[in-house]
């Protein structure tokens, strides 16, 4: 009961802030070359906003992973990727680890979206180990076929002791659903993003680590590409079924 009242207080506070913002109507204006840092990994509370899963949690394999605070006060996504396939006759390939942020929320625990329509790039300041990771921008839709819509792109890391800023345009993200690249592609709807995630998977078993400083969005004035993947006219019941 006490916990409920405390939560209610927090939610009402949030709601008041939302209402005041709504009536002030002073939206942020972004100029070219502006960045907005959305997630930092300084403190343990900020790490609690991320969920870390691996295939051993889903009984699909034997990898394990962790999201901890490194000694430089940065987030450290590390673990061991194991590609052994559990012997249950149904799984063909195995080995994945994933971190994903919690869904964007409004007051009173209402589901919301990240609105990044003013931006063109996703930026991450990371220090990896040379492996390539998969970035997932989930845009869960209202209808059930759209519940697993994820826009993906690959995050290549240089490895080594130097920090790296990866700047990936939103036009390069391709649509996939339940792990399969879809035939009919569309540019990512930037006002409907619900989660962001980073996955480590592949055929090379071994330890992995990715140190993350911040994840943000960037507005590049020179970027004119709308979508990187061209579409073709194909026979109707052959493709996209």
């Amino acid at each position, binding site marked *: 009961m006490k916990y409920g009242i405390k939560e209610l207080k927090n939610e009402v506070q949030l709601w008041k802030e939302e209402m005041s913002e709504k009536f002030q109507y002073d939206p942020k204006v972004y100029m070219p070359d502006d960045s907005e840092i959305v997630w930092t990994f300084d403190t343990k509370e900020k790490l609690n906003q991320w969920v870390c899963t691996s295939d051993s949690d889903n009984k699909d394999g034997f990898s394990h992973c962790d999201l901890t605070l490194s000694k430089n006060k940065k987030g450290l996504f590390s673990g061991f990727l194991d590609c052994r396939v559990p012997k249950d006759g149904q799984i063909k390939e195995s080995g994945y680890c994933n971190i994903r942020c919690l869904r964007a929320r409004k007051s009173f625990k209402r589901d919301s979206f990240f609105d990044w329509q003013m931006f063109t790039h996703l930026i991450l300041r990371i220090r990896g180990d040379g492996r390539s990771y998969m970035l997932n921008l989930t845009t869960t839709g209202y209808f059930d076929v759209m519940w697993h819509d994820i826009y993906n792109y690959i995050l290549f890391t240089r490895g*080594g002791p*130097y920090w790296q800023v990866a700047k990936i345009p939103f036009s390069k993200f391709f649509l996939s659903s339940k792990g399969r690249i879809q035939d009919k592609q569309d540019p990512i709807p930037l006002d409907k993003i619900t989660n962001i995630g980073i996955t480590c998977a592949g*055929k090379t078993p071994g330890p992995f680590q990715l140190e993350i400083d911040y994840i943000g969005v960037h507005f590049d004035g020179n970027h004119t590409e709308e979508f990187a993947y061209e579409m073709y006219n194909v026979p109707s019941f052959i493709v996209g079924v």
Partner: protein
Amino acid sequence: MKSFRPSRSIVTVVHSLWYLGVKRIKSPTALSFIRVKLNRNYNQHYCLHCQPSVVIQIQNFCTTNWVKQNEKGGGSTVKSLTLREEVFQREESRNKKTFITALESYEKRDRLRRGHVEFIYSALKFMEEFGVHKDLAVYKKLLEIFPKGKFIAKNMFQVEFMHYPKQQQCGIDVLDQMESFGVMPDSEVKEILINTFGKQSHVFRKYGRMMYWMPKFKNITPFPLPDPLPKDPLELAKLALRRISVDLQTEISEWNAEELEDSLDKTWIVGSQSPLQRQLLEQHPDDQAVYIEGSFIVWLRQMAVSYFIMRANPKKYPAKEEDLDDVSNITLTMFDHHPESKELMLEPSIHEQEDGTILAMCATGTSSRDSLLSWIRFLQHTNPCLKKIPVVFTLKSPSKELVTVAVNEQESSIAESQEGCKKIPTRDKLSNVSSNEDSSSRTPSKDIADR
């Protein structure tokens, strides 16, 4: 499961159909073999759920994993039924030539290609073992095993209901394995697939998807590596250091510890240092220590290289807080008052990071402390200030436990073993290195301190 005995008429129909095919086979014993198979397969494949149509029966004959083999040896022809996988397991050496021999022996043995689906599945399983999993020519040979023309759909219902689903699924699995190993198909594969399955088949659709997406993703990496990677650890280390080094002026130097008389590990050492880092080292005060940290791993596709860095403590730049809105003291330049000269400083270089200044990096053949000592000795030729600066070693192995990663299905336990991981190249003498007890009985010189 109830056993279902088919009526005599079906048996004679099927038998006669087989006989038609059998007539062309030269060996007289084939007929007796098929008669034996008739009984066995009926019991196995017939149940209440199966539809007793003639087509399905013949298809069920194709789904056998057993193959007749004539044992080698003189006059006696002992026939035994062996599993298809044994065809591959029996080969003494595992390479491309023997793999193709196995495929060709199957093609020659059976003109009708009985059980080709199972054979292709077992071939796919053994491809990695034979080392041909990235070879496009071998995949083409595998796809040619499918009989041509039979599986092409002739009307829209056949297209919709995945004509010959088992064979199409097998074709899809071959293409899937190609995709997972990054082998891009070419127009010859397209011709094979059109002749085997037709343009509307699911296999061809998968081929279409591969030809759309794979060229797009082939060269998107900003850190390109040669394909195939060199196997020599020295070359790999050079590639790794070149990839890690951010400064374009970095020089990669190669030394050998054999040149030094008092080194214990006679191994190669590859180091990287740029002129900027040399300058930073010169500016480093003599009383402050410089730390050798390691070993860290960098992955080059599926090879891991361990490297070490020489790091100094980070330089603290004074953060001067200036309130720009302060109007209490504005310089009146129109009356010839000169503004206060502000502090100028050089922009911090790329090597000065927040957790330390990176002064040099290296990779050695044994990754032992002794090889790092040799590295310091070699560095002293170009950085004479290293003779005075105290060097502290903080070494640890890259992962907390050494695990054997089971690549084979027989090994299934994780154990702490001295062999190390299969994919990590033979640099696993890390287990011998510990920062507290140093087994190398080398007398440390006065300027090198051990933590």
